[in-house]
């Protein structure tokens, strides 16, 4: 039988606010355990939550970006369950009236675009962490993360393959970073994913029974975990079994999912409106204000790069996958005055390779846009060849020197003086009569040999265009 997969994702994006969602404690990552938890985060008797306006602002910004309905009157609710890293015994979340209503996101897989529905996005507080190692059979609790604002983004079950799910997750990841509402750091848990997966015979309308896979924290694992789960479900059904509704945990080491709890064991969270917090009213004026703060979004930027700079799909896509990279590109373009294609090729080629090798983001690039622009300008005006430019770039990566300084210090200036090139060409032709004979008898390939010899003689500094032109002329004499 042919099977169809149905996937919906719940993504928890940590909102990049300075302080927590209901207290003034810092949200900075990586501090000593329990040093960033105030009385409110600890859930001490008598304390009360006060909503962080910036968390609301970021949620509304997100809602605007996915063209969602912003709920004019949204309500915080208590989700009740006991766990040691949940200080109050309830999590403040949103249930019936989430701040962001229905919206959508455009994804691209294999050059085809598809619209994925977003059911809702709501604000909630994160829990702390239970630390099971190092406590000799006991459990340590770190409440630094408790109260960190989260935006839980729930998609419709619109994805039909693990690849679509990954594309959706990547598109969303790109979007939250564009909006500057989440740092997107997946190692630190700033962007986490739960996947609801089910299968059904192709053509069937009704959904199959779904399993929820918890806490899959990298793009790679999402794809693997979902594919694994699809296989498990199909195998189960084909062997006469039935999928049960349950929560499963993905084990990235063993590459398998295993059952955490069944529907019957699921908590009754006993949601009810939190009486300590007032409903949040979002006025039309506020929405209008936030709309003016929306940056150019990834899709729009990509289209603009293709139109305005005549970039191809691939370059435009790479350059716009992060806002910082796109800004870098536009800055280089402006400073160098070079052709867009040259700038794009250098950034997606040489610079990206070097960054990848060093494990750096564009924001941490040792070569800033000014210095790269300086280098590209010298290619453009024929001071150096592309090949020499790579040498110069390597030097720039290691030092703070400008391209001009390196070119001057190393004497790398390209030779465009035709008489100097002519002299070298004459010398090479005179010294290699055999190859000249071959060329003249129709072996065109030998031409490359001559170019190589001339460049070698001139330490690569000859203008390649000039060399080609003159060689051709001389050899056909």
């Amino acid at each position, binding site marked *: 039988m042919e099977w169809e997969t149905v996937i919906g994702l719940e993504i928890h994006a940590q909102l990049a606010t300075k302080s927590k969602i209901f207290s003034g404690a810092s949200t900075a990552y990586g501090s000593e355990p329990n040093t960033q938890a105030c*009385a409110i985060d*600890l*859930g*001490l*008797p*008598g*304390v*009360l*939550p*006060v*909503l962080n306006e910036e968390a609301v602002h970021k949620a509304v910004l997100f809602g605007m970006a996915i063209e969602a309905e912003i709920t004019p009157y949204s309500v915080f609710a*208590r989700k*009740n369950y*006991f766990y*040691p890293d949940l*200080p*109050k*015994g*309830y999590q403040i979340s949103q249930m019936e009236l989430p701040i962001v209503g229905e919206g959508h996101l455009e994804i691209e897989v294999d050059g085809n675009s598809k619209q994925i529905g977003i059911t809702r996005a709501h604000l909630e507080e994160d829990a702390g962490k239970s630390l099971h190692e190092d406590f000799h059979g006991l459990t340590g*609790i770190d409440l630094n993360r408790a109260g960190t604002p989260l935006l839980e983004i729930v998609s419709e079950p619109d994805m039909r393959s693990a690849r679509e799910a990954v594309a959706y997750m990547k598109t969303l990841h790109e979007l939250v970073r564009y909006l500057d509402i989440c740092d997107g750091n997946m190692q630190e848990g700033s962007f986490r994913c739960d996947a609801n997966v089910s299968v059904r015979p192709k053509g069937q309308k009704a959904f199959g029974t779904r399993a929820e896979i918890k806490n899959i924290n990298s793009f790679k694992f999402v794809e693997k975990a979902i594919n694994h789960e699809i296989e498990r479900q199909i195998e189960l059904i084909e062997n006469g079994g039935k999928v049960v509704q349950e929560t499963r945990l993905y084990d990235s080491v063993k590459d398998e999912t295993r059952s955490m709890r069944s529907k019957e064991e699921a908590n*009754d969270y*006993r*949601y*009810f409106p939190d*009486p*300590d*917090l*007032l409903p949040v009213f979002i006025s039309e004026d506020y929405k209008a204000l936030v709309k003016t703060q929306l940056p150019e979004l990834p899709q729009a930027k990509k289209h603009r790069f293709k139109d305005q700079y005549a970039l191809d799909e691939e370059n435009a896509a790479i350059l716009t996958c992060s806002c910082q990279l796109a800004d870098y590109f536009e800055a280089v373009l402006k400073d160098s005055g070079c052709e867009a294609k040259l700038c794009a090729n250098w950034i997606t080629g040489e610079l990206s390779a070097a960054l990848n090798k060093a494990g750096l983001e564009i924001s941490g690039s040792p070569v800033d846009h000014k210095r790269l622009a300086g280098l590209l300008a010298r290619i453009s005006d024929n001071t150096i060849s592309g090949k020499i430019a790579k040498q110069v770039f390597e030097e720039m990566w290691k030092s703070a020197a400008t391209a001009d300084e390196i070119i001057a210090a190393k004497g790398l200036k390209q030779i465009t003086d035709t008489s100097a090139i002519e002299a070298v060409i004459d010398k090479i032709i005179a010294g290699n009569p055999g190859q000249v004979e071959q060329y003249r008898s129709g072996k065109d390939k030998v031409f490359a040999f001559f170019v190589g010899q001339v460049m070698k003689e001139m330490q690569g500094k000859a203008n390649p265009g000039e060399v080609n032109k003159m060689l051709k002329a001389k050899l056909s004499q």
Partner: protein
Amino acid sequence: MHTKTLPDLVRGLRSREFSSLELTQSFLNRIRQHRHLNAYITVTEEDALLNAKAADVRLAEGKAELLTGIPIAHKDIFCTLDVKTTCGSKMLDNFTAPYNATVVEKFNQAGAVMLGKLNMDEFAMGSSNETSYYGAVKNPWNTQAVPGGSSGGSAAAVAARLAACATGTDTGGSIRQPAALCGITGLKPTYGRVSRYGMIAYASSLDQGGPMAHSAEDAAILLQTMAGFDEKDSTSVNCPVPDYSAGLNKSIAGLKIGLPKEFFSDGLNSHIAATLEAAINEYRKLGAEIKEISMPNLKLAIPAYYVIAPAECSANLSRFDGVRFGYRCENPADLTDLYTRTRGEGFGKEVKRRILMGTYALSAGYYEAYYIKAQKIRRLISDDFKNALSEVDVIMGPVTPATAFGIGEKMGDPIEMYLSDIYTIAINLAGVPALSIPAGFIAEMPVGLQIIGNYFAEDMLLNIAHQYQQVTDWHQQTPKGFE
């Protein structure tokens, strides 16, 4: 000194008739002398004497604030920095908060001297002060009787003159009912008038702190200190606080008083009815117009309250889990054992009963039938008050169905106990302010009159109460043995 009104105490301190140290020492002596009332859980004698001395210095320098040097005691539900806060529970017997409640902070800023922390029903759940882990409080008018609750320690302390004044909290009548049973003046302000920050939550949408004192005049001074917007409490209301003392001498001629017929039905004890009739007559003499009104949904208040309050408390009390503070059972075998034994051993019976009721009411399949329904009833009750208060200026009625009952009398029957708040609970559901003032005695036990006003009309309520207290002396009576 201990029988003086707050304005007299303030004047006495400023004119150096007596010092804060003398005044504080005299209350501390009385607390020791009447320890058997069990009104206090903690007495902060040393700090009180130090603060009294410091107050005397400020008084001498002419730098006194509104309450500089005045001895006060706080219900043990308000968190106090470095002083144990138990909420009347074994669960918090070892708990000291690292902060002051906003109310405590405001009294400190105003220069008041804290004598200690007052006994109360465990987590404010009770109407007799008998659910306290620290034992029942005795009513100074008859030590065989309860003082009411949950602010029973506060009412008893003020009635017995073991503090010049006190704070209390009221979720369903917890200020007004003990005030009535102990013959003092107690005000539950409009929900949101007084900050709840640092006040340990029972039912967050109903809890409200307020003053407990000898008279409306004293209560006005206390409310002046307590009231106001607090950015730490999202439910506190940002509207101006009037000068309550300055508003006390307005004529009430022409005042429209509504008497809900539902309050004065056959169910009301005839002695209470007669006492209230006499009090209302005084108001007639002062020029008020009396009008019978109807509030048909009042009868739904108790069932609605006993869904909403337990529902909220079931979540509010989840934080008492033995993990971070408070009581923890010995040698827990695992996490479930830690939770079940800590909570099983740390909470008393009434608290457990309400947590269970609330958990049930919020459970899947019951939420609509209980919680949502109760919220709808709450709206109907609020509408009853809105309608009534568009016809009349204030509503008057009983505070309690009878005078103070005997210790142990109702502990076996929770429903009977819940019914003792039948006249007070609707006010919390609506969020309006109400006060209880002494209006007479039945068999030497005090009876209270309840006056209910519109949102933020505390100034009007205090003036109306004050006018009555200008022509009566019920509020000046002192129980035998406490003169």
